[in-house]
């Protein structure tokens, strides 16, 4: 309990920093010494070719990689200066403070839209919240309220793919996390839904820290303040080649490999 209190002491956006993160899947070394510093209230995009370890890295930020069989980890991830891999920290509390949105929308099919929004609170056993108000504010912040306000009792799978993804964002927001991690949240969606989710991301960055993995370089330029370019070369573990302000990474990259990638010469 004290660990959870410590993690949630500071309300609002938090700084997240990783120091020398290494990940192994069995014998395979997939991430080698990734150190990144995510600024509060900023959107950071992780870009790079497939298999460079950026999704894996994202998962280490709230310990979701621990669900993959054979995953090994070394390094530190600091949330407001506190290591989330500390011996006194429960991964469940980490995930309460650091929310996650997945590539494929995954609303809970047995629940209604409203129940889905509140699912996180029920699942973590919280009490003493105003359900109606929380549903409304969460759905508003995920900019889906106007589309679903008259059908909150409908099953969540009756929504379209884009709406389902925004519902999943609302579900995360209801937990009032300090950081939200997004793993290619728009790759399964049409351009219209993508635009709405991007607008939501920009709005949300006022109040929280966001890390987003994307294959879409225009998307990174549209939403992200900072961009990190990941690359895994010839069997070496994935590493950060370049990290900086998005304009700099895309327009005046300091590394030739970054230049090749952002200009579409490979990947």
């Amino acid at each position, binding site marked *: 309990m004290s660990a959870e209190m410590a993690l949630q002491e500071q309300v609002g956006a938090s700084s997240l920093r990783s120091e020398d993160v290494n990940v192994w899947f069995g014998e395979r070394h997939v991430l080698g010494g990734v150190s990144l510093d995510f600024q509060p209230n900023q959107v950071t995009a992780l870009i790079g070719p497939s298999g460079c370890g950026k999704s894996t890295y994202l998962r280490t930020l709230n310990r979701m990689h621990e669900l993959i069989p054979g995953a090994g980890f070394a390094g530190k991830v600091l949330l407001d200066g506190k290591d989330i891999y500390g011996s006194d920290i429960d991964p469940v509390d980490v995930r309460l403070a650091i929310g996650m949105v*997945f590539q494929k929308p995954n609303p809970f099919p047995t629940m209604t839209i409203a129940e889905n929004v509140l699912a996180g609170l029920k699942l973590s056993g919280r009490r003493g919240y105003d359900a109606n108000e929380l549903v409304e504010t969460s759905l508003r912040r995920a900019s889906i309220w106007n589309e679903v306000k008259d059908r909150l009792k409908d099953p969540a799978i009756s929504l379209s793919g884009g709406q389902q993804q925004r519902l999943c964002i609302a579900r995360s927001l209801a937990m009032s996390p300090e950081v939200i991690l997004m793993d290619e949240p728009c790759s399964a969606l049409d351009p219209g839904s993508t635009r709405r989710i991007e607008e939501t991301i920009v709005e949300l960055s006022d109040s929280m820290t966001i890390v987003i993995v994307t294959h879409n370089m225009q998307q990174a330029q549209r939403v992200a303040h900072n961009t990190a370019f990941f690359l895994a070369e010839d069997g070496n573990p994935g590493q950060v080649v370049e990290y900086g302000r998005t304009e700099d990474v895309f327009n005046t990259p300091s590394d030739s490999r970054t230049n090749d990638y952002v200009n579409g010469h490979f990947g």
Partner: protein
Amino acid sequence: MTLLNPSPTPQPRPAIEPWKTKNPINTRLVVAASVIPAVIAVALTAIFQLAGPIGLILVFMPLQIIAAGAAGVRIYGRKGFADAMLIIFTIFFSSLVAVLLLSVLWSVISQGFKTISPQFLFQNNKYISATTDLAYGGVGHAIIGTLLVVGLTTLVTVPLGVAIAVYLTETRDRGRNVVRTLLQALSGLPSVVAGLFVYSALIVTGITGYAGWAGSLALMPLMLPTVARVAEEALRLVPMELRTGALALGAPAYRAFFMVTLPAAKTGLVTACLLGVARVIGETAPLLLTINSRNETSIDLTSPMASLPTYVYQYISNSYDTSIQRAWGAALVILMLVAILFATARLISSGKKINLRKRK
């Protein structure tokens, strides 16, 4: 008139359904290929006084294969031959299975229906002998006995089986392969062995006499593998994304399971329970060895009890007509019981229908 209309309202045209469009010549060919062999086969069978099965297999089948092959080649060319063969063999073997199943059902229903009456369903077997008229006595006591014995088995086995399924799907423990192998071995266990085990362990040793609960105990190892394996399949069908979604929201594993995985697998788990009941409701051997039989109505699970399968066994061992009729009647009652159980459970589980497989 229509020519002057600048923007005519488009009229819906009936959709083209290619599988429904039929070439009349082909249709005639197919009908001929189906009817002619049958007519020839019937005629030959009648002329040469052949036995039914011989006429069917030695005369009708070859004729049908030749006719269908010819029709296939005529319509589609060379590749039509293989097509025709596939269709002929598929139809032949599926009708074989259907005939087997339906003839069993038909004999039970037609014979059992002569016996069944309200009095047969509600009365017990007291003062009834093998030759007593069918207007007296019935299987009421055996219905209650079966429901109690199988009910107790279900009550114990379903939670146990689901727990095993959860262990197999939701954990990554090393013991899973051992458990899976043991479960497979258990599903091959002859039911009489389960009965003998309980008989020699509890009844011969004098721990208990013949008793309903001993019967339930003997049925448990028979039901367990069915429940566990079907429940495992049901849980495996729940997409991994739902579990990770719940865990990413900061749910402890047990809450994620009870609030997300379990509801999503509900229909499959009901099926697991049903198949388990269907597996044991007709078991005779273990019950003969453990609950014996009884002629009065009893709900005392610590004493000998009646059950439908043992009732059938008891009466079918006599060669009197009335006694055989009673056995048919009881067999029909078992079938009806299973049908009622299945229908109710289906109704309950489809109350709030969410089909996971459809939306993928």
